[in-house]
Structure formats: C-alpha cells, structure tokens
C-alpha cells in the first residue's frame, strides 16, 4: 500500500468539496433532505468512491464489486452526489429528485437507483446486513469487501450491536464499518441524548479491530482504510471523527441542520464558503 501523492490528496479534497456543494444544491432544490450528515461524510465518501471501492459504473451489478451500504441512509444526498460524479447516472437526473417518477427516493432504494447496493433509511441495519454480504463472499470464495457507513446516532439502537456480535463471531475480516462520529443528532448532541462513549472500548470489547482517523483528512482516511484492508481474523471499525455540517460555518455542530433545508440566501452563503460560484440552479 503506497501513500497518496499530494496531487491525489488535492484531487480528492476537491471531490469532497464538490460532493458538499452537490448535496446542498440537491437538498435545496428538493426542499427536503438531511444536510448535516451529508456534509460530515463528504471526505469519507470521496475516498471510498474515488479511491478505495472496487466498482465499475458501467456494471453496477458486477458480482465481484465491493459493496457499500449507507446505513445512515438519511445522508442520501451525498451518496447520490458520489454515484453521479463517479458516473453511475448523470447528475442532471437529480434535477427531478423527489418527483414521483424519479429513480431517486428520499432514502436510498436498491431497486431504483443504479449503484445503490441496499435500500436504507430506517436506521441501524447496515452492520447486520453487511454480515450477510460478508458471509456470502466467504461462501462463494470471492474477495470483495463490504463497507458500511454508520452514524453515531443510529448506534444507539440495539440492532447495531446484534450485528457487531455476529461479525465478531464469524471473524468477518472482509467487513469494514466506518463510524461517522460527528456527535450531533436530530435533538442535540449525541453525548447528551444518549452517550456512546467509550465507543472505541465498546467495539473493541465486541471483538472488533478499531482504527481511528480524522474523517475530514483525506490521507488519514485512506491510510486507515489501508490498515483495515490488511487486518485479518476480525471485523474492522474505523472511527472517523467528523463535524456535522462540516464546511459551512453556520451548519457546523448545529443540530438544526440535521434535517432542515437551506433557503436561497443560506445556500448562496454556504456555496460561497465552500468556494463555489453561485449558480441559478
């Protein structure tokens, strides 16, 4: 595993910014969506979709592809942006996001959207479903990996830990779960609503290899994923420390922006802060 060049880091940093701008425009246009958790996951999604994942946009059902489950399905905007920018469908198709006839649902739908490996949106299921995909890979003797992006809020639900026990029992080292640890959920801070700490100790005690990274540092994420890929004999959790609403000053660390939609003025300000020209769309 070689480190990324500074050009690659710069390129992926640009992708992350692009995904943030796309996500905000999509949510603004539809008048619905979850901006905070989309922005917190932008670098993670950029590294996964533009570096790590073995995927082919021309063959979304390719059997040997790596699988990606967006367990925190509310962040659909950043997934749709990543899939579009990666070439699974044209970004312009998302102009109709939310329309009855659209291929893109509010939350990801595996039957409608090319590149979506599993329907999600109702929280907590990614880890346990990922166990099944990882077991299937083992049974078929295929070397694809299953990546799951979970939120900290959804980690308050029991099904996450049922899945965690299952992955450890079956020693699923082809399952890599990334925790987008932004510490903000709908009603406030995770540490107030229902604290997760000591979260690393919990996953370690459940039998997982735990790796820490800075969820807004491309190189840190990429290096953590490389360590994850070389781990043997146990499932892997990457704790990616992130900031909810990252990149937009008034959204950062503010639970209001979990599920609210920016108005025209707020969108312009957000895009300006992200360094993008404001357009009329």
């Amino acid at each position, binding site marked *: 595993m070689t480190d990324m060049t500074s050009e690659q880091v710069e390129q992926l940093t640009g992708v992350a910014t692009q995904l943030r701008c796309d996500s905000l425009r999509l949510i603004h246009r539809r008048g619905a969506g979850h901006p905070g958790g989309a922005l917190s996951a932008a670098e993670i999604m950029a590294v996964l979709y533009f570096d790590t994942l073995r995927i082919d946009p021309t063959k979304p059902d390719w059997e040997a592809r790596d*699988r990606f489950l967006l367990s925190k399905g509310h962040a659909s905007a950043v997934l749709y942006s990543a899939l579009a920018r990666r070439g699974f469908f044209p970004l312009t198709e998302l102009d109709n996001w939310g329309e009855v006839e659209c291929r893109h649902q509010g939350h990801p739908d595996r039957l409608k959207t090319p590149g979506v490996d599993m329907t999600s949106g109702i929280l907590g299921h990614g880890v346990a479903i990922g*166990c*099944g*995909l990882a077991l299937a890979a083992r*049974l078929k003797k295929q070397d694809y990996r299953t990546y799951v992006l979970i939120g900290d809020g959804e980690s308050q639900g029991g099904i996450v830990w*049922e899945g965690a026990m299952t992955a450890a029992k*079956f020693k699923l080292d082809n399952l890599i779960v990334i925790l987008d640890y932004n510490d903000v959920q709908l009603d406030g801070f995770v540490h107030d609503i229902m604290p997760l700490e000591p979260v690393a100790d919990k996953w370690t005690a459940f039998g997982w290899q735990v790796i820490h990274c800075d969820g807004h540092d491309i190189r840190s994420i990429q290096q953590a994923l490389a360590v994850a890929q070389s781990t043997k004999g146990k499932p892997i959790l990457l704790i990616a420390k992130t900031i909810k609403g990252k990149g937009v000053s008034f959204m950062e660390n503010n639970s209001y922006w979990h599920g609210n939609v920016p108005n025209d003025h707020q969108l312009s300000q957000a895009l300006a802060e992200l360094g993008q020209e404001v357009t009329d769309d």
Partner: protein
Amino acid sequence: MTEISMREGYAKALVELAEQNQKIVALDVDTAASTLSKFFAERHPDRFFNVGIAEPCMLDVAVGLALGGYIPFVNGFAALISLRALEQVRTNVCYAQTNVKIAASYAGLSDFKDGATHYAFTDLANMRALPNLTVIIPADATEAAAWVPIIAEHKGPVYLRISRAPALPVYQPGTRLKIGRGLVLREGSDVTLVATGAMTGRCLQAADQLDGQGVKARVLELHTLKPIDTDIILKAAEETGALVTAEEHSIIGGLGSAVAETLSEACPTPLARVGIPDHFCPTGRDLDKLMDACGLSINDIVKAANRSMRQKSRR
C-alpha cells in the same frame, strides 16, 4: 398421533433440497433444536448460521446473504419473527425485495405449553398487509415438505407458516401445489368451508359431520393467504351461497378478514368466521384440547356452517 410434526416435515425437506441446491443457506436464533433446523446444521454446517436470540439480526443477516446471491431460510418462532423482526421483514425483505424465505415455526397455538407469550395469532395479519410478500400456510407435515422446493424456486420473499405439531393428515402426495391457487378438497353445494393450515383437517371432519345432517359442505384449502385465490372464493360464493372460514389465528386480520374483503367487494355472501376470538389464549396441556377450548373445535366449525346457512336462507 403417528403423523410426523409439520416442523419435522419442513426441516427434513430443507436438508434434502440443500443437497441439490448449493445456494440454500439456513439461519436460526438459538431455536435450532425446536424448529429442527438442527438437521440442516448437522448436515450442512458451513451453510448454517446461528446468530443467537436475536430475530431482527437473523433477518438482516439473511438479507445480506440474499444480496450476495444465496437463498436464505430463516428459522425461528412465528410470534417473535412477526413481531420483533417485523421492521426487517417490511423494509429490508419486502420493500427491498430480497429473496428471503421465512420459516415461521411454532405458529398459531402450537407452542401450547408456553402460552400467550409464544402464540403466533396475529402473524398473518402482520404479514398479509405487506406488499411483495407471499404467505403460505401448509395443512400438514407432508404438505409443508412439498412447499419447500416450490418456495425456494419462487423468486421473492415468502412467509411459510409452520406448526410445531402434527396436524390431521390432509395432503395427498402428488397433488400439485401452486402458489396462489387454492385446492378443492371436497365438493359440496350447501356451504363452503374455507380452511387454512391445521384447521384444514378439522374442516374435513366437520364436513363429515355436516353430511350426517344432510348438508353437503364444500371444503377449500387456501394454503396461500397472499396472493389470495379470489376465483375459487367467488365461485364457492356463487355456487354454495354460504361460507365459513377456519384458521388457527385471530379472527382479526387473517383468512377470515381476507375472505370477507373478497366477498364484500365482489359478491356479498353470508360468512361466519372460525378463529381465535379477540383475546389472549391460556396455556394448555394438549394442543387439540387447547384448540377446542379456544373456539377452533370441529363443533365450532359445524355451528358456524349452520349460522352461515341460516343467513343464506333469510336472504
């Protein structure tokens, strides 16, 4: 009874199918010795996954296996699968259309020693309301076994309702089973007894009793609750003019409701429902006696038939 239990019939058939089809995998929730998926575990240990007492997790892991190209059969108690894991069944199985087969054992009152906590008497109501789900209720052990290869071949989610116990033998080996197609087990022109599951054998016996009164009762087996066989119901309504439904389930939401919906929209016809009344049933020492005590006796079916025919004669 010399009949084998429905669970045994199912479990042995699954082992046999897995010999031929490498895509079959099975899961359980620490009930393998009860559902008898232990036969599968012993024969195909590499394709068997016990996730502990965690029905929601079992369903999600099965969803992942289905996404990976396998045909998972999940095994557990019907009451717990249909309640604890209903979110998984609705969203990750039915909405996402994953090819998961749900073998819901200990259905109805068949876990008679454990009582109300373990009775599955609302599962059909829960499952019947879900889009994309096929709901199958075998009448006896032989029929349960016969369904296994059929539902494995069927593309899409299936709920297969399995009793812990033997049932009165009904199924004639060789009878062709087709999803969504009910069976006429006995011809008759005065009243139709529409049965499902373990109540099917009881309906045949009720028909014998009615015959003694000079009443010719038709007996239909609706092994598929969803999609329901509308044609066979409406034909019976037109030709016999009075119906009875009989199910080992609450009178709310199951077969009786499904038949009532069908009739009232297309051909309003007198109907009497035999099922578990709207309350929790007690523990029993013996399943047959418990069923008798809970409104599911052969006599209850006969009385319902007479009620339905009286309504017909008043029309």
